C-alpha cells in the first residue's frame, strides 16, 4: 500500500482542481488580511503545473513529480506563497529522492521536510498566523500516526485533519509574519489564507492516497 508516482500525480492534479474550486474562498480570506490574491496566485501556479505533468518520464519517482511542482510554483505564483510552497515541495522532493514508492516513514519525512522548508524560507514560528500553523500540527499528527503503526493513507488523513484544525486555530491570532502583520489586532477573527490552502492541499494528498 505504499504511495507511488501515480499517487503523486493524482495529488498534484487534485491540488490544481481544489485550488481552482476554492479560488474565490482563498481570495476572500486574503482580501480580509492581505492583498486578495492568494487564490489567484495558487490557481495560476497549479494551472501551470498541469501541462508539465505530461512531460514526466515513465520512470519518474514521486520526488520528481514534487520537484516539478516546486520549480513551477516558484516561477509562476508571484506572491509569498510561490517561494514558500516552492521551497516546501523542493525540500519534500529532496527528502524522498530516489524512492519509487513512499512508505509511512517516507511520508512523514516528506511532510517534515516540506514544513522545514517553509520555516527556512519564511522564518515564521508557530503562532505567527501563517501556513506554518497548518503544517506543524500536520507533521506532528503524521509522526504520531506513524508511531501508532498506521499506514500511508491514514498518516496523510491525520495530517490533513490536523492541518484543518491548525488553519481554524489561526483565526484568533495576531499575525507576526506576512502582510497580515501590518493589520495588528485587526487580523483577529480572520483565518490565514496560506494555512487554509495548506489544509486543502494536505486533504487532497490524503484523498489521493485513500483510493490506493
Amino acid at each position, binding site marked *: 500500500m505504499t504511495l507511488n508516482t501515480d499517487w503523486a500525480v493524482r495529488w498534484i492534479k487534485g491540488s490544481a482542481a481544489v485550488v481552482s474550486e476554492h479560488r474565490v474562498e482563498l481570495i476572500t480570506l486574503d482580501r480580509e488580511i492581505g492583498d*486578495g490574491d492568494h487564490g489567484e496566485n495558487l490557481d495560476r501556479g497549479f494551472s501551470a503545473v498541469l501541462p508539465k505533468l505530461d512531460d514526466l518520464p515513465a520512470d519518474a519517482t514521486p520526488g520528481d513529480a514534487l520537484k516539478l511542482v516546486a520549480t513551477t510554483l516558484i516561477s509562476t505564483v508571484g506572491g509569498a506563497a510561490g517561494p514558500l510552497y516552492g521551497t516546501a515541495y523542493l525540500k519534500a522532493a529532496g527528502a524522498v529522492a530516489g524512492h519509487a514508492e513512499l512508505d509511512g516513514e517516507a511520508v512523514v519525512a516528506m511532510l517534515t521536510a516540506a514544513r522545514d522548508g517553509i520555516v527556512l524560507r519564511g522564518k515564521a514560528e508557530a503562532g505567527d498566523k501563517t501556513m506554518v500553523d497548518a503544517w506543524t500540527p500536520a507533521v506532528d499528527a503524521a509522526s504520531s500516526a506513524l508511531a501508532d503503526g498506521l499506514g500511508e493513507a491514514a498518516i496523510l488523513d491525520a495530517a490533513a485533519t490536523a492541518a484543518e484544525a491548525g488553519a481554524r486555530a489561526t483565526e484568533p491570532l495576531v499575525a507576526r509574519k506576512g502582510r497580515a502583520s501590518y493589520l495588528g489586532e485587526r487580523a483577529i477573527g480572520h483565518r490565514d489564507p496560506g494555512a487554509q490552502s495548506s489544509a486543502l492541499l494536505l486533504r487532497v494528498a490524503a484523498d489521493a492516497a485513500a483510493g490506493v
Partner: protein
Amino acid sequence: MAGVAGRVGLVFVSHSSKIAEGLVELAGQMAQGTALAAAGGMDDGGIGTSFDRVGEAIAAVDSGSGVVVLCDLGSAILTAETARDFLDDDDVRDRVVIVDAPLVEGAVAAAVEAEGGGDLAAVVSAARSAIGAF
C-alpha cells in the same frame, strides 16, 4: 481616488512619477477604500518634484480627516513642506502631516492603517514604525 469621508488620505511624493504611481498600485492593494494620490515628477513629468502636483494631491485626498504625506528624498520633503505652507485654509494645513518615514514601507503601513479606520495620529505612527514590520 478622491477623499473618503472619515478616512485619512495619503500622498506619495517622489522625484519619479513612476515610483509615485507604482506606490498607489502597491499600497492600494491593501487599502482599496482609502484615498491615495501620486505626486511624482515635475510638471513636465521629468525627474524632480512639483509644488503644484503636491498641492493638488493633498486637495484630492483630503476629506477632513487628515492627510499624510510621504516623500522619497530630502528635496521632496522641502517641496512638500512648501506646498503645505501655501495651503490657504488653516484647518486644512493643520491636518496635513509630512512624515519622515521610508517611502515604500511607510506608504504600505500607513495605507493599511488608514484602511482600518485609524485616525491621523495612528496613520502617522504606522508610517513611522513601518520598517521591519514584514
